């Protein structure tokens, strides 16, 4: 790997495209494969309408991001997937979005059933029907296939799951998503426009803050704006409140899935308490309209903190009481320990991020590895577990609550002392022909926003990678050899986003 092939970049730093040398396709492939073999992670691989390929590699232990790019002359190149399985979904996406064929990819199935790419001016291809494709099949007299969804028995998002079973044992699970494809990335192209922030916030509704923050940071990076320390501290509060609410809800839902009612009921209510803290500040339980490019839409003044702090303390005490019941019930712990095993090597191979990765003992947390906002000065310790099963994923969530709580209490104490700031004005124009990558550790894991601007400083390509995009395949792997009746529990322990994947 030559020194110029991978360009180091900091989380949230903008870089003129001219500073990223255009590699040959072979060198581009080699650079990625070598970096991955040395332990880096393929955080993003995407193309744009001009057949340029961009890759973002994350060196989590070295705290460094790298970007690289190439220009394809024809719509095909030799696929990365056979040697680098992390790339499998990215390459399927390339084929679907831009009609680029990664040759040698094992199976280029549709990702989101969006309209196949056709050159400008050509007759548009017909829109495929979601879920209509070939599924992997296990043949045999005693093998049976179970199809679940996209319409489920509960009020959850749509996704189709195809199980190949032998009795109760699952040989293979195939997950087909794309039912929620709205075209978020496509809508953001040509931006930023007044709706951009809304579109970023709704990439995954339960991760509004993380996506909004990542979006704001790409804009701020490209505009060369530095956010005040106070605004960063408040953004940290927003992100950790989001984490608290979702982790509490998840622990309750996990408990509900094994039929343990006390924690399920209490946590269901407590999740509401945490969401209401967010709503108190910005008027929306999911944190919409709290952040804005350049700073905050809603500051957190002393009076507000005085109102929130006692409510938060109360919610925290009740949360601990409620979740303690869960760990105290042997029947629950046995269920958690026996299901959904993902090995560390599997997790590394597929490039898992966030809670499922940390539950396998892989130390990976954007807040520590690629610090952003307040996390450089106020570090958060990544929480690890070892076994990679449902219990580990629940345990990681539980211990992360303590870290978040500690961070929140520190931020409240500090923010109460400093005066609130006026709302920032509009951002200056974005740098032209530049690229900016922003990573934020959402409650599920890494949220990546990659913006590339054209000569006029508008987005020529905007790529969003939610943690779910990396992790869905982990769920399929975790279910191999397990019983089909444990699927809902495994699914809940990953709790991945359908809309964050489908965009």
């Amino acid at each position, binding site marked *: 790997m030559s020194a110029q092939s991978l360009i180091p970049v900091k989380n949230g730093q903008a870089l003129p495209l001219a500073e990223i040398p255009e590699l040959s396709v072979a060198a581009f492939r080699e650079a990625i494969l070598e970096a991955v073999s040395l332990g880096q992670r393929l955080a993003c691989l995407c193309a744009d309408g001009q057949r340029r390929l961009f890759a973002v590699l994350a060196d989590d232990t070295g705290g460094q991001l790298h970007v690289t790019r190439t220009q394809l002359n024809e719509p095909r190149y030799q696929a990365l997937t056979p040697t680098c399985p992390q790339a499998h979904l990215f390459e399927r996406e390339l084929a679907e979005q831009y009609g680029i064929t990664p040759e040698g990819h094992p199976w280029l199935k549709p990702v989101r059933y969006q309209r196949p790419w056709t050159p400008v001016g050509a007759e548009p291809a017909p829109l495929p029907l979601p879920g209509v494709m070939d599924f992997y099949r296990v043949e045999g007299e005693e093998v049976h296939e179970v199809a679940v969804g996209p319409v489920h028995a509960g009020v959850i998002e749509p996704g189709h799951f195809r199980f190949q079973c032998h009795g109760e044992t699952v040989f293979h699970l195939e997950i087909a998503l794309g039912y929620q494809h709205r075209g978020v990335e496509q809508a953001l192209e040509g931006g930023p426009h007044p709706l951009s922030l809304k579109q970023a916030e709704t990439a995954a509704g339960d991760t509004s803050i993380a996506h909004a923050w990542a979006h704001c940071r790409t804009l701020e990076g490209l505009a060369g704006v530095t956010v005040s320390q106070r605004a960063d501290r408040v953004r940290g509060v927003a992100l950790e409140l989001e984490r608290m609410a979702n982790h509490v809800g998840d622990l309750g839902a996990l408990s509900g899935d094994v*039929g343990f*009612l006390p924690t399920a009921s209490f946590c269901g*209510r407590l999740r509401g308490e945490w969401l209401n803290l967010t709503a108190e500040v910005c008027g929306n339980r999911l944190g919409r309209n709290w952040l804005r490019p350049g700073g905050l839409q809603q500051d957190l003044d002393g009076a507000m903190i005085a109102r929130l702090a006692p409510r938060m303390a109360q919610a925290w005490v009740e949360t601990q009481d409620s979740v303690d019941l869960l760990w105290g*019930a042997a*029947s*629950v712990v046995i269920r958690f320990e026996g299901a959904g095993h993902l090995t560390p090597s599997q997790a590394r191979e597929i490039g898992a991020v966030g809670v499922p990765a940390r539950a396998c003992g892989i130390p990976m947390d954007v807040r520590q590895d690629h610090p952003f906002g307040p996390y450089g000065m106020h570090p958060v310790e990544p929480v690890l577990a070892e076994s990679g099963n449902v219990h580990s994923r629940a345990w990681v969530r539980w211990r992360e609550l303590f870290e978040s709580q500690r961070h929140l209490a520190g931020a409240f104490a500090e923010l109460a002392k400093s005066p609130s700031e006026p709302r920032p004005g509009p951002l200056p124009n974005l740098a032209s022909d530049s690229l900016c990558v922003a990573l934020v550790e959402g409650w599920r894991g890494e949220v990546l926003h990659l913006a590339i601007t054209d000569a006029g400083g508008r987005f020529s390509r905007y790529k969003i990678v939610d943690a779910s995009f990396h992790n869905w395949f982990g769920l399929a792997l975790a279910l191999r050899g397990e019983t089909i009746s444990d699927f809902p*529990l495994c699914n809940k322990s990953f709790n991945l986003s359908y809309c964050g994947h489908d965009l």
Partner: protein
Amino acid sequence: MSHTLASTLMNLLLHTLAVLVLPPLIPGLIAKVKAWLAGRSGPPVLQLYYDLAKLARKQAVFSRTTSWVFLAGPVGTVAALLVASLLVPFGHTPAPVSFEGDVILFAYLLGLARFLTVLSALDTGSAFEGMGAAREVSFSALAEPALFFGFAALAKATGSLSLAPMLQAHGMGKVGHLSGPLILILAGWAIVYLAENARMPVDDPNTHLELTMIHEVMVLDHSGRPFALVLYGASLKLVVLGALLVDPLLPRLAQGWLNWLAFLAALGLLAVVVGVVESSTARFRMTKVPQFLLAGVLASAFAFLLLLV
């Protein structure tokens, strides 16, 4: 008790009325207990009555892949359970129909009810329902021996093959009250009760997760009136099997109405116990369920052995 025609008719009337009207109260009670223990107010105790009334006014939807077997499921199940309910004494009032050997008929009527439910599930051709049917059949194959060993033990103790004397003998002092074998039988039957009624820790009646269901998944395709029958049938099963559990524990009281009252109170108490069990334990992993059922078989088998020696 005076076996006058009037009192026999009165009992028959009360028994039938209880069987027809009472059952939907039991799931309501269980749900209420669970809600209270979880700190919620929960649905009204009479919720199942409202649900049945609503379903009775709704049209049923039948899949094109189904045949008459699909409808035979709920109808046949309720019919079989209704007949079975006439064989069971409620407390210390005599059963409306009682003859030597009725215990065999009783057990096979329960078997028939399950057989029809399973056929109806298979008739839909759905992967879920087939899976649920497979689970139901394999688990009930393990629950049945527990029931039969219990019957055998009681038959040995009382020298009768009729449900009424078998279940009521204890309260009359013929067999020691709360003797070792009786405790073992009731422990085994308690497990059967939870399994047969699709309660925790064997099955989760509240779950919406179709892949984890056992009993619920077999009735997913039913709607309207047939579904009302399914729900009523499930609650009827709670009462019929509940009578097996509480009868041996009830003391015989002098007055008929006191016996009725004791029975109803005991049934209510049983619902409370089920609610408490469901609130305090997580559901077993499905692979562990057979072990739990085997514990039930062993308990009642030991009771039988104890009575043999």
